[in-house]
């Protein structure tokens, strides 16, 4: 699809908007609809669109697979680590109330951090799976 002018122009215009919307869904998820999962999927959809139009190799230059593998594991670690942080600060596992000075602030902080972990893992996993499929089709 490297020579398709319309696709290139339109996707160049759309991809930043998709990323912006993904970030909005991620960080506004506690006020509006959405959350980490949706944000991660939308973000990865933007990158997949980029990979479809400009080629998988170009997309891999932006975000190499080893970074994705790190991010996928880091997301799960952030989630589980937030639980451990609750344990260390004297609460139960995944109890967010103890994370900040007041219980409500702690809950809010915990939810934002945990959603960030979810978003990172989902975004990287979707891209990793797509790259695995796209890589497979290439003649060696």
């Amino acid at each position, binding site marked *: 699809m490297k020579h398709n002018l319309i696709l290139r122009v339109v996707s160049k215009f759309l991809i930043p908007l998709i990323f912006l919307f993904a970030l909005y869904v991620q960080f506004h998820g506690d006020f509006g609809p*959405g*959350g980490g999962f949706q944000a991660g999927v939308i973000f990865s*959809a933007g990158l997949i669109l980029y990979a479809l139009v400009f080629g998988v190799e170009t997309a891999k230059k932006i975000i190499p697979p080893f970074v994705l593998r790190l991010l996928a594991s880091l997301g799960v670690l952030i989630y589980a680590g937030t639980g451990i942080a609750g344990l260390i600060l004297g609460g139960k596992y995944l109890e967010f109330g103890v994370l900040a000075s007041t219980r*409500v602030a702690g*809950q809010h902080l915990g939810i934002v951090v945990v*959603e960030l972990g979810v978003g990172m893992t*989902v975004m990287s996993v979707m891209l990793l799976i*797509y790259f695995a499929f796209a890589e497979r089709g290439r003649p060696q």
Partner: protein
Amino acid sequence: MIETIVDITNLTFLTIAALAIARLRNLFAVVMLFSVFSLISAGLFVVMDAADVAFTEAAVGAGISTVLMLATLALTYSHKDKKDEHRSGHKPWLPLVVVFITGVMLIYGTSDIPGFGDPDAPAQMHVAPYYLEKSLSETGVPNVVTAVLASYRSFDTLGEVTVIFTAAIAVLLLIGGRRSSTTKNSDGA
């Protein structure tokens, strides 16, 4: 009133898409129709005020799963093959009877389901009132869905993230990595 019209229109399109999926033999067209089906479902979810579900359906169902199915099609086609699936030889009567009976039973089952948004529905009587009343004051998060998913049901969500992570590991183990026939013996430790 307008919701009913939108519902009926969307459900009509859903039915048309489903029938077309069942009838068509061109797999590329079927994948694209799956995508259309997901997009219409996302529209229905928005009408039902489930914006979170609609996001997921539109992004995963209409977007990423379509791309993955197209990638699978591209991998499994060879250019010599015809792109159409072969029509099977057997008569469709037995499957038709099974589907018909299942459908009748499902429709009969819906007569016991409480109405949409019924406040007396069992699902609304258990913990839902507590979440609706207390989630804002307890978590400071206005979106009840996020509060329930991330805080009250945090263990479930941790499990889900782990499942997604495991899926990535499984896919990478199965089809990830580079296939190299020349360095197979030296590499295979």
